[in-house]
């Protein structure tokens, strides 16, 4: 028992901790980023590490190392259905590894204690997903799953200052509080009534509640702001400013706080299986839903009372093929094919352009007497997939004239030039299907806004996207940080009121919201120094004191 509290216990614990840091913060990111290149690099390093322990100790060190990494991994994958199964599976993993270490590795009990203690500490004391972002961020908050249903993969996410106190609230949609939390019953129905009830339940597509969720950061935690506490005027602005999204369209349409199915399996299938009529039926379903949306909007295609930034444009509306609004207080209108008011941008010569989206993109300017001109345009021939592209307005070269970041394959950075021409400042590799601009904003305490984009590894062929920060330079986009999480719906704003901007995002098909806080601790250099230090210690110990 006494040996448990001797110095070697601390050494083993320190070794386990450095091993953890090295594996999680250096080796794993290198593999996520570098793929085979990391393998080529780390294989010799592992070979070196293998010969560093003295032959008499090699088996023990190796068993300790592998045992620790396996236990650390297995404790992340426990059966957490109930507390009992969680404790039970954790005990099985711990006892299994401990016995292996003791009887195969011939490790002393103090080493086994260190192994188990550090593995437990690294698993049960903090949110492990932090390890994927720790180089530059920590996870400040992570929501529960907000959507209880089987078919929506993601929902819109936005930020809005509900209380007008310069602290942004997180706005999204969900139904976790609206859907009763009933345990899933997988048992086979026995009575006729039970069978009939289950048949009725399974046969039809049903409406799903889908409510607005607004979260406010208070006293170190996020709380949901009841929708009835948000003023009508703010609710209208939130609706205007939230990213437009139609989950399930045209099979579901949003009505009030519900998504209502517009089809049922039998009739829809029989209709589509009159194959010649299938496009007519598809189109009629579109029109039925568009009609419903137009009725809800009073016939308005899109409108924007004000932009969430200084702008000369106000009271904009598209209705019956006409765009109307005010520019510097002067009214204007023009016929348009556009259906979406996107944003405004500063153009050369101090003009402010209005960006609208139809089948193509138009940037309009308002001249004397409210005369509207199309100053710039982008069409589907210039940019393949323009209909699904997202546009972000950003002054990336700080010349008081905005550029357009076109999130697409490939992505573009476009600078407006005189005469309605575009200068292409940068494009992503045409074969890179992963890169996509997400935002342009200040992150953390930085005063310089940066490009935030989803980008895959530099050398791996694996297409998984990781959120990264970039600064534009004439040589290209210089990466400033990276998070090893495939994040979508990326928003940036001060959600905790500390005057620094956090990143708010979600992960596809999880319906969880994350808030990431930027830090300035050089985590990677520290982790590299610890890893190299461990190797150097091994070399010195191996060759100096033979």
């Amino acid at each position, binding site marked *: 028992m006494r040996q448990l509290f001797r110095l070697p216990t601390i050494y083993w614990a320190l070794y386990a901790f450095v091993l953890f840091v090295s594996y999680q913060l250096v080796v794993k990111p290198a593999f996520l980023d570098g793929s085979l290149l990391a393998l080529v690099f780390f294989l010799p390093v592992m070979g070196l590490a293998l010969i560093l322990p003295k032959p008499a100790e090699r088996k023990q060190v190796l068993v300790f190392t592998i045992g620790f990494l396996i236990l650390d991994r297995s404790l992340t994958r426990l059966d957490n259905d109930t507390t009992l199964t969680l404790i039970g599976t954790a005990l099985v993993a711990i006892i299994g590894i401990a016995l292996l270490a003791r009887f195969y590795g011939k490790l002393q009990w103090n080493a086994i204690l260190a192994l188990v203690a550090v593995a437990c500490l690294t698993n049960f004391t903090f949110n492990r997903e932090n390890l994927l972002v720790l180089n530059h961020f920590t996870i400040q908050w992570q929501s529960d799953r907000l959507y209880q249903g089987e*078919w929506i993969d993601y929902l819109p996410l936005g930020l809005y200052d509900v209380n007008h106190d310069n602290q942004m609230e997180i706005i999204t949609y969900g139904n976790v509080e609206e859907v009763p939390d009933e345990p899933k019953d997988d048992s086979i129905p026995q009575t006729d009534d039970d069978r009939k009830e289950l048949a009725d339940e399974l046969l039809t597509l049903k409406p799903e509640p889908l409510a607005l969720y607004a979260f406010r950061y208070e006293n170190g935690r996020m709380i949901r702001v009841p929708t009835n506490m948000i003023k009508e005027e703010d609710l209208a602005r939130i609706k205007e400013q939230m990213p437009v999204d139609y989950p399930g*369209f045209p099979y579901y349409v949003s009505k009030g706080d519900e998504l209502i199915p517009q089809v049922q399996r*039998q009739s829809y299938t029989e209709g589509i299986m009159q194959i010649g009529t299938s496009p*007519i039926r598809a189109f009629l379903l579109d029109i039925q839903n568009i009609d419903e949306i137009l009725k809800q909007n009073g016939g308005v295609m899109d409108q924007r009372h004000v932009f969430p930034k200084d702008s000369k444009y106000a009271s904009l509306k598209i209705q019956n093929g006409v765009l109307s609004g005010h520019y510097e207080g002067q009214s204007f209108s023009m016929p348009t094919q556009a*259906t979406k008011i996107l944003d405004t941008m500063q153009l050369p010569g101090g003009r402010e352009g209005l960006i609208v989206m139809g089948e193509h993109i138009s940037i309009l300017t308002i001249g004397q007497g409210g005369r509207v001109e199309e100053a710039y345009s982008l069409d589907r021939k210039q940019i393949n997939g323009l209909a699904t592209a997202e546009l972000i307005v950003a002054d990336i070269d700080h010349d008081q004239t905005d550029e357009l970041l076109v999130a697409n394959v490939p992505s573009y950075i476009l600078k407006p030039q005189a005469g309605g021409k575009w200068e292409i400042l940068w494009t992503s590799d045409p074969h890179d299907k992963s890169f996509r601009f997400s935002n342009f904003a200040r992150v953390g305490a930085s005063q310089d806004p940066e490009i935030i984009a989803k980008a895959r590894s530099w050398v791996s062929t694996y297409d998984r996207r990781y959120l990264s920060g970039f600064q534009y330079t004439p040589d*290209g986009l210089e990466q400033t940080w990276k998070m090893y999480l495939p994040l979508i719906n990326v928003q940036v704003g001060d959600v905790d009121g500390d005057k620094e901007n956090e990143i708010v995002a979600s992960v596809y098909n999880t319906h969880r919201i994350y808030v990431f806080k930027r830090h300035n601790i050089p985590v990677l250099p520290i982790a590299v120094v610890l890893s190299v230090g461990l190797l150097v210690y091994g070399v010195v110990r191996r060759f100096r004191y033979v």
Partner: protein
Amino acid sequence: MSNLKKPLVLGLVISLATLLGGCTYESGPKLFASDTKEAQEVTSPEENLQPAAPGEAKEALIKAIKDHKTNPKHQKFWYDGYVKNTILSRTTTSMFNGVVVNPDGYLVNGRIATQDYQYYRNKDKRYVRKGDYWITAKEEPLELDVTRGFEDWLPFLDQASVLPEEKVIGTICTPYQIKISGTDWLANSTSPLFEPLRQELAGRSDLQSILKETTVKMTFWIGTDGLIHQYQTWIIVPIPGAGYMDQEVNFRMFKFTDESIALPDVAEVEKYLLD
């Protein structure tokens, strides 16, 4: 020891450079898609379009419909299809595949907005499968006529174009194509399905505007056997607040001479009937 120093130092330097060094994403070719060499060399689909000979497309479709409906050798076939709707960055798809055995019925492996199901129709029996159970379908059935609706395109085929021949699942086909506006489609189609919308349109300038801006491009592929092998319709329709939706309705029909095609036995399905 000295032999080990050099590779060790080199390894450390490489590791530090790799892990600490900044990465720069250099620009790709600074060209719009329309300005690339590929775009200028490749003939666009529109350039491949040739006006079909007068009556050619109409005659081919009429003949194909008749064959589909009456030729006893072509009453069993496989099919697959989908309706793909893309609005901004979101795509919602419904999918279908299975077999048709005329005049008895069909089996459909379907998916609506990521929710899988099966639909089985055999004479007067109609069942939906969800999960492990079959359930009796209770809605009033539509007529079983898989080729219904092709004839509604006939009024438009005088303006059809013909595209170069191509293979659809092993069969050489001639594609015929038309491009019309939503307004034209509604005004000239013979489909009774459009009737309620025609009546709704009076006094609805917002919907009229939607139809006016809608583009419909339909292509059907007639095989050397005279049958329809593929049927694709692109519908580009304005969506409030979301640009234009690209909707693709695409069906392929194949293996018309596969004698092994059969519907599952009704008794086998009813064994797992829940209600």
